[in-house]
C-alpha cells in the first residue's frame, strides 16, 4: 500500500524536480544556443539576438568549415592522438595495474607510493616543459620527427586511473585465477581470459577517461607541436577564436560572408563535440557503475 506523502516530503519532491529541471536546462541550453548560432545570419549572431531558435538561417558557416583543409587536417590529428594515445595508455595501465593488484608482488607498497606520489606533488609547468623539450630533441635524435608521437607517448598516464583499475582487479576472486593456472594458463592468459572479461565496466570507464582527455587535450599540444599541420582540433579552434577576436580583421568581414565570425567558432564547437555525443550514451551506463565500484576506497 502506498503511504500518503507528508507535506514536507511533497514540497521537497516538487522542489527537486523544479531545481533539477532548471539545472538540466542550464546544462543543455549552451549547446542548443551553439547550434542555433552556427546556422544564423550575420547580424543576428553579431548582436546576440538569438535566444533559442536560429534566425535568418544559413549553412555557409558549416560549408566553409567543411571546405577548409586545415580543419580536416586538425580533425585527423585529433583522431590520431586519441586513437594511439588511448591504446598506449590502456596497455600500460592495464599491465601495470594487473601487476600491482597481485599480493605476491615484491615491493608492492613502494610501487604504489611511486604512483600516488605523482598525485600529491608535481614538478610544475616549467620543469615539465623543459623535460618535454629534452624528450623532443631525443625523439628527433632517433628519427621520430612527428611531434604527435611525443604527445602520444610522453603525455597522459594518470595515476588515478591506474589505481581505479588496480582496485577493480583486486576484487576478482583469486579462486578463478587459481583454477585457470591449474588448467595451465600463462600470466598473459590469466590477464586476458580472466581479469579483462571480469572488469569490463571499469575498463570501459577508464578507456573513456583516457579517450576524452586525449580528445580534449590542448595546452601541451599547443606548446610542444611546432608544425601547424600537426596541431589537433582544440588548438585549431582556439587559434581561430583568437584570430576572430581581433576587431581589425573583422571590419570587412561582412562584404564576403553571410555569417558572423563567431558562427565559425560555433560550427567548430559542434563538430568537435559530435563524436563525444555519439559515444557517450553507449558508455554512460558503464562509467556510472565503474566509478561507483572503484572510486571510493576506505
Amino acid at each position, binding site marked *: 500500500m502506498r503511504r500518503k506523502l*507528508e*507535506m*514536507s*516530503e511533497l*514540497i521537497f519532491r516538487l522542489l*527537486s*524536480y523544479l*531545481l*533539477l529541471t532548471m*539545472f538540466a536546462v*542550464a*546544462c*543543455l541550453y*549552451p549547446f542548443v*544556443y*551553439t547550434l542555433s548560432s552556427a546556422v544564423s545570419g550575420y547580424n543576428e549572431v*553579431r548582436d*546576440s539576438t*538569438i535566444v533559442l531558435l536560429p534566425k535568418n538561417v544559413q549553412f555557409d558557416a558549416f560549408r566553409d568549415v567543411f571546405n577548409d583543409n586545415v580543419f580536416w587536417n586538425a580533425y585527423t590529428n585529433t583522431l590520431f592522438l586519441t586513437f594511439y594515445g588511448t591504446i598506449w595508455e590502456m*596497455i*600500460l595501465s592495464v599491465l601495470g595495474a594487473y601487476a600491482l593488484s597481485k599480493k*605476491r608482488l*615484491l615491493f608492492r607498497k613502494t*610501487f604504489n607510493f611511486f*604512483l600516488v606520489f*605523482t598525485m*600529491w*606533488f*608535481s*614538478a*610544475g*609547468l*616549467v*620543469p*615539465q*616543459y*623543459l*623535460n618535454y623539450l629534452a624528450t623532443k630533441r631525443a625523439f628527433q635524435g632517433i628519427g621520430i620527427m612527428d611531434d604527435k608521437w611525443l604527445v602520444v607517448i610522453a*603525455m597522459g*598516464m594518470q*595515476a588515478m586511473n591506474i589505481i581505479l583499475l588496480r582496485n577493480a582487479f583486486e576484487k576478482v576472486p583469486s579462486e578463478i585465477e587459481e583454477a585457470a593456472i591449474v588448467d595451465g594458463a*600463462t*600470466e*598473459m592468459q590469466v590477464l586476458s581470459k580472466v581479469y579483462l572479461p571480469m572488469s569490463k565496466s571499469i575498463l570501459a570507464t577508464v578507456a573513456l577517461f583516457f579517450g*576524452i582527455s586525449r580528445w*580534449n587535450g*590542448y*595546452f601541451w599540444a599547443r606548446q610542444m607541436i611546432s608544425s601547424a599541420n600537426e596541431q589537433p582540433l*582544440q588548438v585549431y*579552434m582556439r587559434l581561430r577564436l583568437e584570430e576572430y577576436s581581433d576587431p581589425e580583421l573583422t571590419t570587412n568581414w561582412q562584404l564576403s560572408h553571410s555569417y558572423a565570425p563567431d558562427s565559425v*567558432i560555433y560550427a567548430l*564547437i559542434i563538430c*568537435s*563535440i559530435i563524436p*563525444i555525443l555519439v559515444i*557517450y*550514451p553507449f558508455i554512460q551506463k558503464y562509467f556510472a557503475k565503474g566509478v561507483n565500484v572503484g572510486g*571510493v*576506497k*576506505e
Partner: protein
Amino acid sequence: MDIKAADYLIFDEESGTYIENPEQIVRDDVEKHYWRNVAKTVIKDWRLYLMLVPMIAVFLLWRYLPMYELLGCFKQTEDAKTVAEQYYSGFSYFRTLLFGTGNAELSMQFMRAFRNTFLLSFYGLVFGFPVPILIALFFNEIRSNITRSIYQVLTYLPKFMSTVVMTSLVIMLVKQGSDTSGMQPGVISQMLSHLGLISTEAAYGGLLNNPAFFRAIYQISGIWEGAGYDSIVFFAAIIAISPTSYEAAQIDGAGKLSQMRYVVLPMIFSTIVIMLITRIGSLLNVGYEKVLLLYNANTYVTADVVSTFAQRNGIAGALKGMASAAEMLSNIIGMLLVIGANTIARKASDVSLY
C-alpha cells in the same frame, strides 16, 4: 636487532649439550641472502615484473625526471646550458619572490597569484562542494528510472566538453558590445543586465575584461561543468541506504528535514569526508588551462594564479628558474595540505583516502 647467544644455542635435553638453533640458522640465512632471494623470486615470476616496467618507465621519464629540473630553482637560468651546468645562485629566486629582493614588482605579482590561487579554490570549495550533494539528493527524489537517466545524461554532459570548448562558449556568451557600431554584448550579459544584476556599462565592457566578475564566472562555469558529474559518488552512497531506514523514520513521524538529518546525512557522511579531503588536498591545484584560456591582461588582478604566473614568466618568458621556484613553493604547500587533511580525517573519523 640485538642478537643474543641464546638465539643461536639451545639446550638439547636428549644429548645434554648445547646445539645450534636451526630456526635461527634459517632466519640468518634469509637475512644474509635477502637480495639473492629477491632476485630469485623476480626471476621465477619475471612475467609479472616485466608488466610493471613500461608503466614505471613512463612515470620515471615524464613525471619524476622533471623533478630533477627543479634544481633550476637554485641556479642561474641560462638557456644554452643544461640545468647541471648552470651556476648556483642559492635562494635568490625565493628571496625575490617572497621578500621582493631585487624585483619588488615580481614579488607583488607572485603574492597576488598565490592569493588568487587560494581564493579561487576556496570559493570553489565553499560554493562548489555542496552543489553535487544537493543534486544527488534531488536525483534520489525521482522515482522513475527513465526520467532520472535523462536528467543524469543531461547534467553529466558538460563534464565531457573540453576546456577550449567551454571557455570559448563563456567568452562568446559574455562578449563585449559596442555603442558606436550598435553591436550588442553576449546573450548572458544581456540577460543579466535586463535582470538588473549587472550594469549596462559592465555588460558592454565585456564581463571577462572586468576583474570584478572573473571569480564569479570561474565558479559558475565550474559548477555548470562539474556539479552533475560529481554527484555520481554521492548518489551512489544515497541509493545504498536501505528503504527500511526511511520507513522506520517515517513511522516515528520524521518529516523530510528530519529524515535528511538523521537518516541520509549519517549514511553519506564518510563519502562527504573523503570528497572533502580530496578537495582540500587540491586547494592549491587550480585548473590552469581554464584560467589561461579565460584571463587577459585586464583581469590579472583577480585571475592570475601561480601556474599561469609560471607559464607567463617561465614558458612564454625567460625567467625559468624564477617560475619553477614559484610553482615549487605552491606545490610543496599543496602537498602538505593533502597529507595534513588526510591525517586529520584519519584521526577524527577513521576515514582516509590514502
